[in-house]
Protein backbone atom coordinates (compact mmCIF):
# COMPACT_ATOMS: atom_id res chain seq x y z
CA UNK A 1 0.00 0.00 0.00
CA UNK A 2 2.84 2.32 0.91
CA UNK A 3 4.52 1.52 -2.40
CA UNK A 4 1.37 2.32 -4.35
CA UNK A 5 1.14 5.60 -2.47
CA UNK A 6 4.72 6.48 -3.38
CA UNK A 7 4.08 5.67 -7.02
CA UNK A 8 0.97 7.86 -7.03
CA UNK A 9 2.90 10.71 -5.40
CA UNK A 10 5.70 10.30 -7.94
CA UNK A 11 3.24 10.36 -10.85
CA UNK A 12 1.51 13.40 -9.36
CA UNK A 13 4.82 15.26 -9.01
CA UNK A 14 5.90 14.27 -12.50
CA UNK A 15 2.59 15.44 -13.96
CA UNK A 16 2.41 18.69 -12.08
CA UNK A 17 6.11 19.29 -12.68
CA UNK A 18 5.66 18.74 -16.39
CA UNK A 19 2.57 20.92 -16.59
CA UNK A 20 4.67 23.75 -15.18
CA UNK A 21 7.04 23.53 -18.15
CA UNK A 22 4.73 25.29 -20.54
CA UNK A 23 1.74 27.53 -20.68
CA UNK A 24 -0.94 27.59 -23.35
CA UNK A 25 -2.53 30.85 -24.37
CA UNK A 26 -5.22 31.63 -26.91
CA UNK A 27 -3.98 33.67 -29.85
CA UNK A 28 -7.39 33.95 -31.49
CA UNK A 29 -10.69 32.11 -31.24
CA UNK A 30 -13.92 32.16 -33.22
CA UNK A 31 -12.52 30.18 -36.12
CA UNK A 32 -14.62 27.57 -37.87
CA UNK A 33 -12.77 24.28 -38.14
CA UNK A 34 -9.29 25.74 -38.73
CA UNK A 35 -7.19 23.31 -40.76
CA UNK A 36 -3.78 24.83 -41.40
CA UNK A 37 -1.67 27.86 -40.53
CA UNK A 38 1.09 29.73 -42.31
CA UNK A 39 3.33 32.33 -40.72
CA UNK A 40 3.96 35.44 -42.81
CA UNK A 41 7.33 37.22 -42.73
CA UNK A 42 5.81 40.29 -41.01
CA UNK A 43 4.52 38.23 -38.08
CA UNK A 44 0.96 37.90 -39.35
CA UNK A 45 -0.61 34.48 -39.86
CA UNK A 46 -2.91 32.96 -42.43
CA UNK A 47 -5.34 30.28 -41.27
CA UNK A 48 -7.49 28.09 -43.50
CA UNK A 49 -10.98 27.22 -42.30
CA UNK A 50 -12.42 24.01 -43.70
CA UNK A 51 -15.77 25.68 -44.62
CA UNK A 52 -13.84 27.52 -47.31
CA UNK A 53 -12.40 30.68 -45.83
CA UNK A 54 -8.83 31.96 -45.57
CA UNK A 55 -8.42 34.20 -42.54
CA UNK A 56 -5.71 36.70 -41.64
CA UNK A 57 -4.47 37.14 -38.09
CA UNK A 58 -2.78 40.51 -37.96
CA UNK A 59 -1.29 42.03 -34.84
CA UNK A 60 -2.71 39.16 -32.81
CA UNK A 61 -6.27 39.84 -33.96
CA UNK A 62 -8.45 37.94 -36.38
CA UNK A 63 -9.41 40.10 -39.32
CA UNK A 64 -13.18 39.91 -39.71
CA UNK A 65 -13.19 39.89 -43.50
CA UNK A 66 -11.74 36.68 -45.00
CA UNK A 67 -9.17 36.87 -47.77
CA UNK A 68 -11.00 37.60 -51.01
CA UNK A 69 -11.12 35.75 -54.29
CA UNK A 70 -10.75 32.17 -53.14
CA UNK A 71 -11.81 29.63 -55.76
CA UNK A 72 -15.02 27.66 -55.27
CA UNK A 73 -14.51 25.05 -52.57
CA UNK A 74 -16.61 21.90 -52.19
CA UNK A 75 -17.62 21.81 -48.52
CA UNK A 76 -19.15 18.56 -47.34
CA UNK A 77 -18.16 15.60 -45.21
CA UNK A 78 -14.42 15.98 -44.72
CA UNK A 79 -14.16 18.22 -47.77
CA UNK A 80 -13.34 21.90 -47.73
CA UNK A 81 -10.34 24.19 -47.67
CA UNK A 82 -7.28 22.32 -46.48
CA UNK A 83 -3.61 23.27 -46.37
CA UNK A 84 -1.65 26.43 -47.03
CA UNK A 85 2.07 26.83 -47.52
CA UNK A 86 4.10 29.84 -48.53
CA UNK A 87 6.57 29.88 -51.37
CA UNK A 88 10.19 29.89 -50.25
CA UNK A 89 10.46 33.35 -51.81
CA UNK A 90 7.17 34.60 -50.40
CA UNK A 91 8.80 37.76 -49.02
CA UNK A 92 9.56 38.85 -52.58
CA UNK A 93 6.85 37.17 -54.67
CA UNK A 94 3.90 36.84 -52.16
CA UNK A 95 3.12 33.46 -53.69
CA UNK A 96 1.34 30.74 -51.75
CA UNK A 97 -0.18 27.33 -52.40
CA UNK A 98 -3.59 26.16 -51.24
CA UNK A 99 -5.17 22.73 -51.33
CA UNK A 100 -8.91 22.15 -51.17
CA UNK A 101 -11.77 19.93 -52.28
CA UNK A 102 -13.11 21.04 -55.63
CA UNK A 103 -16.20 19.97 -57.54
CA UNK A 104 -19.47 18.75 -56.08
CA UNK A 105 -20.95 15.94 -54.01
CA UNK A 106 -21.14 13.54 -56.92
CA UNK A 107 -17.81 14.50 -58.53
CA UNK A 108 -15.13 16.02 -56.30
CA UNK A 109 -11.36 15.93 -56.10
CA UNK A 110 -8.36 17.29 -54.22
CA UNK A 111 -7.07 20.37 -56.00
CA UNK A 112 -4.10 22.70 -55.54
CA UNK A 113 -3.77 26.29 -56.65
CA UNK A 114 -0.90 28.70 -56.78
CA UNK A 115 -1.76 32.33 -56.10
CA UNK A 116 -0.30 35.62 -54.93
CA UNK A 117 -1.52 37.43 -51.83
CA UNK A 118 -2.07 41.07 -52.64
CA UNK A 119 -3.81 43.38 -50.18
CA UNK A 120 -6.01 40.72 -48.58
CA UNK A 121 -6.92 39.25 -51.92
CA UNK A 122 -5.71 36.29 -53.96
CA UNK A 123 -4.60 37.21 -57.45
CA UNK A 124 -2.80 35.49 -60.30
CA UNK A 125 -4.51 32.21 -59.42
CA UNK A 126 -3.44 29.09 -61.29
CA UNK A 127 -4.70 25.55 -60.76
CA UNK A 128 -1.57 23.44 -60.64
CA UNK A 129 -3.01 20.06 -59.70
CA UNK A 130 -6.37 18.30 -59.73
CA UNK A 131 -6.57 14.70 -58.58
CA UNK A 132 -7.93 12.33 -61.17
CA UNK A 133 -10.41 10.75 -61.51
CA UNK A 134 -13.04 12.54 -59.44
CA UNK A 135 -15.03 10.66 -56.81
CA UNK A 136 -18.53 10.64 -55.32
CA UNK A 137 -17.57 10.38 -51.66
CA UNK A 138 -16.94 13.38 -49.38
CA UNK A 139 -14.15 11.64 -47.46
CA UNK A 140 -10.40 10.96 -47.52
CA UNK A 141 -9.03 13.86 -49.52
CA UNK A 142 -5.52 13.95 -48.02
CA UNK A 143 -4.75 17.56 -48.86
CA UNK A 144 -1.42 18.23 -47.14
CA UNK A 145 1.32 20.17 -48.91
CA UNK A 146 5.07 20.46 -48.47
CA UNK A 147 7.99 21.86 -50.43
CA UNK A 148 11.04 19.70 -50.96
CA UNK A 149 14.51 21.26 -50.81
CA UNK A 150 14.62 21.17 -54.65
CA UNK A 151 11.50 23.40 -54.61
CA UNK A 152 9.18 20.75 -56.00
CA UNK A 153 5.80 20.47 -54.32
CA UNK A 154 4.43 17.40 -52.55
CA UNK A 155 0.66 16.90 -52.35
CA UNK A 156 -1.13 14.12 -50.46
CA UNK A 157 -4.24 12.66 -52.06
CA UNK A 158 -6.42 10.29 -50.04
CA UNK A 159 -8.06 7.17 -51.41
CA UNK A 160 -11.63 8.48 -51.24
CA UNK A 161 -12.83 5.75 -48.82
CA UNK A 162 -14.85 3.74 -51.33
CA UNK A 163 -11.93 3.73 -53.77
CA UNK A 164 -9.34 2.06 -51.56
CA UNK A 165 -8.45 -0.63 -54.13
CA UNK A 166 -7.19 2.10 -56.42
CA UNK A 167 -4.47 3.04 -53.92
CA UNK A 168 -2.53 0.03 -55.24
CA UNK A 169 -2.95 1.03 -58.89
CA UNK A 170 -0.77 3.63 -60.58
CA UNK A 171 -3.31 4.78 -63.18
CA UNK A 172 -5.04 7.17 -60.77
CA UNK A 173 -4.26 9.61 -57.93
CA UNK A 174 -6.21 7.86 -55.14
CA UNK A 175 -4.02 7.09 -52.14
CA UNK A 176 -0.92 8.70 -53.62
CA UNK A 177 1.76 11.18 -52.68
CA UNK A 178 2.14 13.52 -55.64
CA UNK A 179 5.23 15.48 -56.64
CA UNK A 180 4.92 18.36 -59.08
CA UNK A 181 6.82 21.49 -59.96
CA UNK A 182 5.44 24.72 -58.59
CA UNK A 183 3.90 25.51 -61.96
CA UNK A 184 2.11 22.16 -62.07
CA UNK A 185 4.42 20.45 -64.53
CA UNK A 186 5.90 17.05 -63.73
CA UNK A 187 9.52 16.78 -62.60
CA UNK A 188 11.52 14.65 -65.00
CA UNK A 189 13.00 12.56 -62.19
CA UNK A 190 9.68 11.36 -60.74
CA UNK A 191 9.84 7.59 -60.25
CA UNK A 192 7.08 6.57 -62.67
CA UNK A 193 7.52 9.06 -65.52
CA UNK A 194 8.74 6.37 -67.90
CA UNK A 195 5.90 3.92 -67.26
CA UNK A 196 2.98 3.94 -69.64
CA UNK A 197 0.64 2.43 -67.03
CA UNK A 198 1.34 5.09 -64.40
CA UNK A 199 0.45 8.73 -63.88
CA UNK A 200 3.71 10.69 -63.90
CA UNK A 201 2.89 12.88 -60.88
CA UNK A 202 2.96 9.88 -58.51
CA UNK A 203 5.85 9.83 -56.07
CA UNK A 204 4.65 7.07 -53.70
CA UNK A 205 1.50 4.99 -53.42
CA UNK A 206 -0.46 2.69 -51.11
CA UNK A 207 -1.69 5.45 -48.78
CA UNK A 208 -5.11 5.95 -47.18
CA UNK A 209 -5.78 9.47 -45.88
CA UNK A 210 -2.50 11.28 -45.32
CA UNK A 211 -3.03 14.37 -43.19
CA UNK A 212 0.50 14.92 -42.03
CA UNK A 213 3.43 15.68 -44.30
CA UNK A 214 6.78 17.01 -43.25
CA UNK A 215 10.18 17.60 -44.79
CA UNK A 216 12.51 17.63 -41.81
CA UNK A 217 15.62 19.74 -41.41
CA UNK A 218 17.82 16.88 -42.64
CA UNK A 219 15.67 16.43 -45.77
CA UNK A 220 13.83 13.32 -44.58
CA UNK A 221 10.24 13.19 -45.78
CA UNK A 222 7.79 12.02 -43.12
CA UNK A 223 4.15 11.28 -43.68
CA UNK A 224 1.47 10.10 -41.33
CA UNK A 225 -1.63 8.35 -42.49
CA UNK A 226 -5.04 7.80 -40.90
CA UNK A 227 -5.71 4.11 -40.46
CA UNK A 228 -9.24 2.73 -40.32
CA UNK A 229 -10.01 1.32 -36.84
CA UNK A 230 -6.43 1.27 -35.63
CA UNK A 231 -3.42 1.27 -37.89
CA UNK A 232 -2.57 4.98 -38.09
CA UNK A 233 0.94 5.03 -39.50
CA UNK A 234 4.09 7.13 -39.45
CA UNK A 235 6.04 6.52 -42.64
CA UNK A 236 9.50 7.46 -43.83
CA UNK A 237 8.91 8.35 -47.45
CA UNK A 238 11.14 7.13 -50.27
CA UNK A 239 10.21 7.86 -53.89
CA UNK A 240 8.66 5.01 -55.86
CA UNK A 241 7.76 2.95 -52.79
CA UNK A 242 4.49 1.22 -52.01
CA UNK A 243 3.23 1.85 -48.47
CA UNK A 244 0.80 -1.02 -48.54
CA UNK A 245 -2.75 0.25 -48.09
CA UNK A 246 -5.08 -1.64 -48.38
CA UNK A 247 -3.02 -4.80 -49.02
CA UNK A 248 -1.39 -4.62 -45.59
CA UNK A 249 -2.54 -2.72 -42.52
CA UNK A 250 -2.44 -2.84 -38.74
CA UNK A 251 -6.06 -1.71 -38.55
CA UNK A 252 -9.43 -3.25 -39.32
CA UNK A 253 -12.39 -1.76 -41.14
CA UNK A 254 -14.89 0.41 -39.24
CA UNK A 255 -17.34 -2.49 -39.62
CA UNK A 256 -14.99 -4.71 -37.61
CA UNK A 257 -14.03 -6.86 -40.62
CA UNK A 258 -10.55 -7.20 -42.05
CA UNK A 259 -9.40 -4.84 -44.74
CA UNK A 260 -6.59 -7.34 -45.10
CA UNK A 261 -5.44 -10.05 -42.72
CA UNK A 262 -1.82 -9.15 -43.49
CA UNK A 263 0.44 -6.58 -41.88
CA UNK A 264 3.49 -7.06 -44.09
CA UNK A 265 4.31 -8.18 -47.61
CA UNK A 266 7.26 -8.23 -49.98
CA UNK A 267 7.67 -4.99 -51.87
CA UNK A 268 5.60 -3.00 -49.39
CA UNK A 269 7.06 -0.62 -46.83
CA UNK A 270 6.57 -0.99 -43.10
CA UNK A 271 5.62 2.05 -41.02
CA UNK A 272 8.20 3.52 -38.67
CA UNK A 273 5.53 3.25 -36.02
CA UNK A 274 1.78 2.74 -35.92
CA UNK A 275 -1.01 3.50 -33.48
CA UNK A 276 -3.64 1.00 -32.34
CA UNK A 277 -6.16 2.17 -31.29
CA UNK A 278 -6.30 5.11 -33.65
CA UNK A 279 -5.24 8.53 -32.47
CA UNK A 280 -6.47 10.07 -35.79
CA UNK A 281 -3.32 12.00 -36.68
CA UNK A 282 -3.67 15.31 -38.48
CA UNK A 283 -0.96 17.94 -38.63
CA UNK A 284 2.71 17.52 -38.18
CA UNK A 285 5.87 19.45 -37.45
CA UNK A 286 9.47 19.07 -36.46
CA UNK A 287 10.65 21.22 -33.60
CA UNK A 288 13.89 22.96 -34.57
CA UNK A 289 14.02 26.04 -32.32
CA UNK A 290 15.68 26.61 -28.95
CA UNK A 291 12.74 27.89 -26.92
CA UNK A 292 12.10 24.34 -25.69
CA UNK A 293 15.62 22.84 -25.79
CA UNK A 294 14.40 19.40 -24.68
CA UNK A 295 12.10 19.19 -27.69
CA UNK A 296 14.71 19.99 -30.35
CA UNK A 297 14.62 17.41 -33.15
CA UNK A 298 11.34 15.92 -31.92
CA UNK A 299 8.40 15.36 -34.24
CA UNK A 300 4.97 16.54 -33.11
CA UNK A 301 1.81 14.81 -34.36
CA UNK A 302 -1.58 16.43 -33.74
CA UNK A 303 -4.30 13.91 -32.90
CA UNK A 304 -8.02 14.44 -33.40
CA UNK A 305 -9.52 11.35 -31.75
CA UNK A 306 -7.01 11.24 -28.93
CA UNK A 307 -7.44 14.99 -28.33
CA UNK A 308 -3.73 15.38 -27.87
CA UNK A 309 -0.40 15.98 -29.51
CA UNK A 310 2.12 13.18 -29.63
CA UNK A 311 5.75 14.19 -29.11
CA UNK A 312 7.98 11.68 -30.85
CA UNK A 313 11.61 11.44 -29.77
CA UNK A 314 13.47 10.24 -32.85
CA UNK A 315 16.81 8.51 -33.27
CA UNK A 316 18.34 6.73 -36.27
CA UNK A 317 15.06 7.02 -38.15
CA UNK A 318 13.08 5.29 -35.42
CA UNK A 319 10.73 6.48 -32.70
CA UNK A 320 12.63 6.07 -29.43
CA UNK A 321 9.82 7.24 -27.18
CA UNK A 322 6.50 9.06 -27.27
CA UNK A 323 4.76 11.48 -24.98
CA UNK A 324 1.05 12.31 -25.12
CA UNK A 325 0.69 16.05 -24.54
CA UNK A 326 -1.93 18.75 -24.13
CA UNK A 327 -4.72 16.35 -23.16
CA UNK A 328 -5.71 18.90 -20.53
CA UNK A 329 -7.22 20.95 -23.38
CA UNK A 330 -9.67 18.13 -24.16
CA UNK A 331 -9.76 19.39 -27.74
CA UNK A 332 -9.44 17.70 -31.09
CA UNK A 333 -6.14 19.06 -32.39
CA UNK A 334 -6.08 19.53 -36.15
CA UNK A 335 -2.65 21.05 -36.62
CA UNK A 336 0.61 21.59 -34.78
CA UNK A 337 3.25 23.94 -36.13
CA UNK A 338 6.43 25.57 -34.95
CA UNK A 339 6.15 29.32 -35.22
CA UNK A 340 8.98 31.60 -36.31
CA UNK A 341 9.22 32.68 -32.67
CA UNK A 342 10.13 29.11 -31.67
CA UNK A 343 6.83 28.55 -29.91
CA UNK A 344 4.46 25.75 -30.76
CA UNK A 345 1.09 26.61 -32.30
CA UNK A 346 -2.00 24.40 -32.17
CA UNK A 347 -5.26 24.57 -34.10
CA UNK A 348 -8.32 23.10 -32.41
CA UNK A 349 -10.89 21.35 -34.58
CA UNK A 350 -14.35 22.71 -33.82
CA UNK A 351 -16.84 25.34 -34.95
CA UNK A 352 -15.35 27.45 -32.17
CA UNK A 353 -11.80 26.70 -33.23
CA UNK A 354 -8.79 28.40 -31.77
CA UNK A 355 -5.19 29.15 -32.49
CA UNK A 356 -3.23 28.35 -29.34
CA UNK A 357 0.38 29.21 -28.53
CA UNK A 358 2.50 26.96 -26.33
CA UNK A 359 5.20 28.91 -24.51
CA UNK A 360 7.67 28.12 -21.75
CA UNK A 361 6.16 28.65 -18.32
CA UNK A 362 8.92 31.01 -17.27
Amino acid at each position, binding site marked *: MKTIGRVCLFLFLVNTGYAADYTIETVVDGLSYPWAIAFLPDGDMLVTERPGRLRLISGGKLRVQPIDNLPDVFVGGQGGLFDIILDSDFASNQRLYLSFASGAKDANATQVISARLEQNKLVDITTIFTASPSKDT*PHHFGGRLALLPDQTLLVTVGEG*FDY*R*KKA*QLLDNHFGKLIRINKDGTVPEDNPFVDRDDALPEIWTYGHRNQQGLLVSADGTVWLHDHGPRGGDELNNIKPGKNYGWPAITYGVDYSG*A*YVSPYTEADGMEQPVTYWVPSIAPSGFCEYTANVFPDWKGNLFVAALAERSVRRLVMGNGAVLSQETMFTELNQRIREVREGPDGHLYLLTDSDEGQVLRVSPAN
Partner: protein
Amino acid sequence: MKFTKSILAFIAAVAVAYLLISIMGTQFVLADVETYGLVVSLTDRLAATLHDIYGLVPVLLILVSTTFFIAFIIASICKQFIGGQRRYWFLVAGFVSLPVTMKLVKLAMGVTPFAMAGTAFGLLLIALSGLAGSWVYVRLSQVQEN
Protein backbone atom coordinates in the same frame (compact mmCIF):
# COMPACT_ATOMS: atom_id res chain seq x y z
CA MET B 1 -45.99 -20.57 -28.13
CA LYS B 2 -46.60 -18.90 -31.49
CA PHE B 3 -44.86 -15.78 -30.28
CA THR B 4 -41.86 -17.78 -29.07
CA LYS B 5 -41.70 -19.64 -32.36
CA SER B 6 -41.84 -16.36 -34.22
CA ILE B 7 -39.01 -14.95 -32.13
CA LEU B 8 -36.86 -18.04 -32.68
CA ALA B 9 -37.60 -17.90 -36.42
CA PHE B 10 -36.54 -14.25 -36.47
CA ILE B 11 -33.29 -15.03 -34.66
CA ALA B 12 -32.57 -17.86 -37.09
CA ALA B 13 -33.33 -15.59 -40.07
CA VAL B 14 -30.96 -12.91 -38.79
CA ALA B 15 -28.27 -15.50 -38.07
CA VAL B 16 -28.47 -17.01 -41.55
CA ALA B 17 -28.36 -13.67 -43.34
CA TYR B 18 -25.59 -12.39 -41.06
CA LEU B 19 -23.41 -15.46 -41.54
CA LEU B 20 -23.86 -15.47 -45.31
CA ILE B 21 -23.03 -11.78 -45.67
CA SER B 22 -20.07 -12.03 -43.31
CA ILE B 23 -18.61 -15.12 -44.97
CA MET B 24 -19.09 -13.78 -48.50
CA GLY B 25 -17.83 -10.36 -47.48
CA THR B 26 -14.58 -11.87 -46.27
CA GLN B 27 -14.12 -13.73 -49.55
CA PHE B 28 -14.72 -10.45 -51.42
CA VAL B 29 -12.00 -8.72 -49.41
CA LEU B 30 -9.58 -11.62 -49.77
CA ALA B 31 -10.16 -11.66 -53.52
CA ASP B 32 -9.10 -8.00 -53.52
CA VAL B 33 -6.05 -8.83 -51.43
CA GLU B 34 -5.02 -11.44 -54.02
CA THR B 35 -5.23 -8.85 -56.77
CA TYR B 36 -2.50 -6.93 -54.93
CA GLY B 37 -0.18 -9.90 -55.46
CA LEU B 38 -0.52 -11.57 -52.07
CA VAL B 39 -1.25 -15.30 -51.81
CA VAL B 40 -4.02 -16.13 -49.34
CA SER B 41 -3.57 -19.61 -47.85
CA LEU B 42 -6.52 -21.76 -46.81
CA THR B 43 -5.51 -21.35 -43.17
CA ASP B 44 -5.44 -17.55 -43.52
CA ARG B 45 -8.77 -17.66 -45.34
CA LEU B 46 -10.43 -19.66 -42.58
CA ALA B 47 -8.90 -17.50 -39.86
CA ALA B 48 -10.00 -14.32 -41.62
CA THR B 49 -13.53 -15.68 -42.10
CA LEU B 50 -13.83 -16.53 -38.41
CA HIS B 51 -12.31 -13.18 -37.45
CA ASP B 52 -14.94 -11.33 -39.47
CA ILE B 53 -17.85 -13.42 -38.18
CA TYR B 54 -16.84 -12.31 -34.73
CA GLY B 55 -15.68 -8.82 -35.69
CA LEU B 56 -18.82 -7.79 -37.54
CA VAL B 57 -21.16 -8.51 -34.63
CA PRO B 58 -21.37 -4.94 -33.27
CA VAL B 59 -22.20 -3.39 -36.65
CA LEU B 60 -23.55 -5.90 -39.17
CA LEU B 61 -25.56 -8.01 -36.75
CA ILE B 62 -27.34 -4.95 -35.42
CA LEU B 63 -27.88 -3.67 -38.97
CA VAL B 64 -29.37 -6.99 -40.17
CA SER B 65 -31.55 -7.34 -37.04
CA THR B 66 -32.93 -3.83 -37.29
CA THR B 67 -33.47 -4.09 -41.04
CA PHE B 68 -35.30 -7.42 -40.81
CA PHE B 69 -37.38 -6.18 -37.88
CA ILE B 70 -38.64 -3.20 -39.87
CA ALA B 71 -38.91 -5.12 -43.16
CA PHE B 72 -40.92 -7.98 -41.63
CA ILE B 73 -43.32 -5.54 -39.96
CA ILE B 74 -43.85 -3.87 -43.35
CA ALA B 75 -44.35 -7.31 -44.94
CA SER B 76 -47.00 -8.15 -42.33
CA ILE B 77 -48.80 -4.86 -42.92
CA CYS B 78 -48.73 -5.43 -46.68
CA LYS B 79 -50.15 -8.92 -46.24
CA GLN B 80 -52.91 -7.56 -44.03
CA PHE B 81 -53.94 -4.61 -46.19
CA ILE B 82 -53.08 -5.73 -49.71
CA GLY B 83 -53.52 -9.45 -49.40
CA GLY B 84 -51.67 -12.20 -51.24
CA GLN B 85 -49.49 -14.96 -49.85
CA ARG B 86 -47.65 -14.13 -46.65
CA ARG B 87 -44.52 -16.00 -47.69
CA TYR B 88 -44.04 -13.88 -50.82
CA TRP B 89 -44.27 -10.62 -48.89
CA PHE B 90 -41.60 -11.83 -46.48
CA LEU B 91 -39.34 -13.15 -49.25
CA VAL B 92 -39.56 -9.83 -51.08
CA ALA B 93 -38.89 -7.99 -47.81
CA GLY B 94 -35.82 -10.15 -47.17
CA PHE B 95 -34.48 -9.69 -50.68
CA VAL B 96 -34.96 -5.93 -50.91
CA SER B 97 -34.40 -4.64 -47.39
CA LEU B 98 -30.67 -5.18 -46.89
CA PRO B 99 -29.51 -3.58 -50.17
CA VAL B 100 -31.85 -0.68 -49.41
CA THR B 101 -30.26 -0.32 -45.97
CA MET B 102 -26.77 -0.31 -47.51
CA LYS B 103 -27.83 2.43 -49.90
CA LEU B 104 -29.44 4.45 -47.09
CA VAL B 105 -26.21 4.26 -45.09
CA LYS B 106 -24.31 5.45 -48.16
CA LEU B 107 -26.77 8.33 -48.57
CA ALA B 108 -26.52 9.30 -44.92
CA MET B 109 -22.79 8.91 -44.41
CA GLY B 110 -21.47 9.32 -47.93
CA VAL B 111 -19.58 6.04 -47.85
CA THR B 112 -20.32 2.35 -48.33
CA PRO B 113 -20.54 0.57 -44.98
CA PHE B 114 -19.17 -2.76 -46.25
CA ALA B 115 -16.70 -3.17 -49.07
CA MET B 116 -18.90 -5.88 -50.58
CA ALA B 117 -21.80 -3.43 -50.93
CA GLY B 118 -19.72 -1.25 -53.23
CA THR B 119 -20.40 -3.37 -56.31
CA ALA B 120 -23.63 -4.47 -58.04
CA PHE B 121 -22.60 -8.12 -57.68
CA GLY B 122 -21.91 -7.62 -53.97
CA LEU B 123 -25.29 -5.97 -53.49
CA LEU B 124 -26.94 -8.89 -55.29
CA LEU B 125 -25.22 -11.34 -52.92
CA ILE B 126 -26.40 -9.27 -49.96
CA ALA B 127 -29.94 -9.36 -51.38
CA LEU B 128 -29.73 -13.14 -51.81
CA SER B 129 -28.49 -13.48 -48.23
CA GLY B 130 -31.53 -11.49 -47.11
CA LEU B 131 -33.72 -13.75 -49.24
CA ALA B 132 -32.22 -16.83 -47.57
CA GLY B 133 -32.80 -15.30 -44.13
CA SER B 134 -36.42 -14.47 -44.88
CA TRP B 135 -36.97 -17.97 -46.34
CA VAL B 136 -35.75 -19.44 -43.03
CA TYR B 137 -38.15 -17.12 -41.21
CA VAL B 138 -41.09 -18.17 -43.38
CA ARG B 139 -40.28 -21.88 -42.95
CA LEU B 140 -39.79 -21.76 -39.21
CA SER B 141 -42.81 -19.62 -38.51
CA GLN B 142 -45.12 -21.64 -40.76
CA VAL B 143 -47.30 -22.91 -37.89
CA GLN B 144 -48.15 -19.35 -37.05
CA GLU B 145 -49.23 -18.80 -40.63
CA ASN B 146 -51.43 -21.89 -40.65
